[in-house]
């Protein structure tokens, strides 16, 4: 109980201190570009009305959701295929390293050329950046399955499908989840960037709009909202991680 309280205090401690520091440091600010935090908070309620949630926040989250889901499906499926097929791995390895090294935002103008400026473009941009960590981690995870475990599966003649679902994927799951965590962070960044380039809605679009119309407190409130969205997604991901990798964390804690 005492431990739980201490943990909770530690978790919210630094954010609380930073928030307070921001509040105090900006309290008397007369700068146009750095308004007092109190003003930003006041603006928050004004700006993020139900209408804005519907028109900007939800479309952003939907694009992120679609892009992220596609990245996970494509990344895991291709990663298993490449990781389990030796010639395919040798063939694709250098290309994958290259593709991973290209900074995803530079692809936005390219993707706009063929995917237009609709939702499809934004989803494509998110996938173009998010798929790599999932793909590469899945390949690595699938390739490092314990040989004795594969021998065991083969000796009992589990068959391809069962070996994949019951042995290969669970064994690779810690790596896959690591890739998915990186992909989520990249996905949020690309969601915002794609909406800044060409959009009629979305969080990135709204923030650029505020900036261009010199609605500085509103702009800051949008940035704050983005931060909260990211934190909420990370918390959600932790719940997922603990559910899927329960055995993994438990085992590591036991062995430590």
């Amino acid at each position, binding site marked *: 109980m005492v431990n739980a309280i201490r943990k909770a205090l530690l978790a919210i401690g630094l954010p609380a201190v930073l928030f307070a520091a921001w509040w105090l440091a900006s309290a008397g600010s007369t700068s146009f570009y750095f308004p007092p935090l109190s003003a930003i908070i006041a603006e928050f309620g004004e700006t993020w009305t139900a209408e804005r949630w519907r028109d900007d926040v939800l479309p952003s989250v939907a694009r992120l959701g679609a892009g992220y889901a596609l990245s996970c499906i494509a990344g895991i499926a291709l990663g298993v295929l490449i990781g389990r097929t030796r010639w395919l791995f040798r063939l694709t390895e250098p290309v994958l390293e290259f593709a991973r090294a290209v900074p995803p935002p530079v692809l936005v103008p390219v993707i706009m050329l063929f995917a237009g400026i609709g939702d499809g473009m934004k989803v494509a941009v998110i996938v173009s950046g998010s798929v790599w960590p999932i793909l590469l981690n899945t390949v690595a995870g699938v390739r490092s399955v*314990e040989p*004795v*475990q594969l*021998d*065991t599966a*083969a*000796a*009992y*003649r*589990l*068959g391809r499908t*069962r070996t994949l679902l*019951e*042995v290969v994927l*669970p*064994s690779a*799951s810690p790596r896959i989840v690591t890739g998915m965590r990186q992909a989520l962070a990249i996905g949020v960044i690309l969601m915002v960037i794609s909406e800044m380039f060409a959009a009629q809605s979305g969080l990135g679009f709204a923030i650029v709009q505020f900036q261009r119309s010199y609605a500085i407190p509103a702009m800051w409130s949008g940035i704050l909202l983005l931060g909260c969205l990211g934190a909420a997604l990370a918390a959600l991901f932790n719940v997922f991680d603990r559910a899927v990798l329960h*055995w*993994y964390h*438990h*085992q590591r804690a*036991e*062995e430590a």
Partner: protein
Amino acid sequence: MLEVAGIGRDYRVDGGTHTAVDSLSFQVAEGELVCIVGPSGCGKTTLLRMCAGLLAPTRGRALVDGREVDGPPEGTAVVFQEYGRSLFPWMRVGANVELPLKRLGLTRGERRNRVAEALRLVDLEGKERVWPWQLSGGMQQRVAIARAVAFRPRLLLMDEPFAAVDAQTRADLEDLIRDLWSRLGITVVFITHDIDESVYLGQRVLVLSSPPTTLRAEIHVDLGPDRDQLETRSGPAFAKLRAAVWREIQAAKRGGE
């Protein structure tokens, strides 16, 4: 039951070839318990993997029930030395034992019964919900044995299964294998580098030579069906057999006659 006919395996090592197993032939009858010993690095594991259909031989062949082994044969279970790595850490003990049963067309209830029975046989009754990594090494190997037992194989191949457990646990596990073998009537091929263990367990001991490996000697163990860690091991018959295997292995190491 198991017939090995002129089986051999070469490995390619930068430029040349290394003959791990030259040519081996022997037979194991239905219901027999045969131990295979040899000096370290003599290709015991290579031999077992070829019998299990996990490794293709370079020449010769293995036959199970008269059918050539070209993949893991039906009705065969393998217990590996690395118990910690052959169990699946994302499954509890019960699920680990149950996994091979899932393709046998059994109902859920039948599978559960088999799992419970197998765990009881290895003295791990009611441990279905425990995670394998919460168990000691000897207990983990018993789970791997339970997995093999629940599968009800006709042929059980064991690759130095007790090499990594402590002496006391090892003695218990040896008795467990003798017990399971006589109760279940299965054919067991047991690979070990431990001379005492081979004599204590087997009805017959096959001694392999150093690489390129051939069959060096075959020793019949006339110790009778009832064996006891203390009595059997301290008797003169045991000492004689042990010495016979010992001499063969020493000669094998020198590579002479």
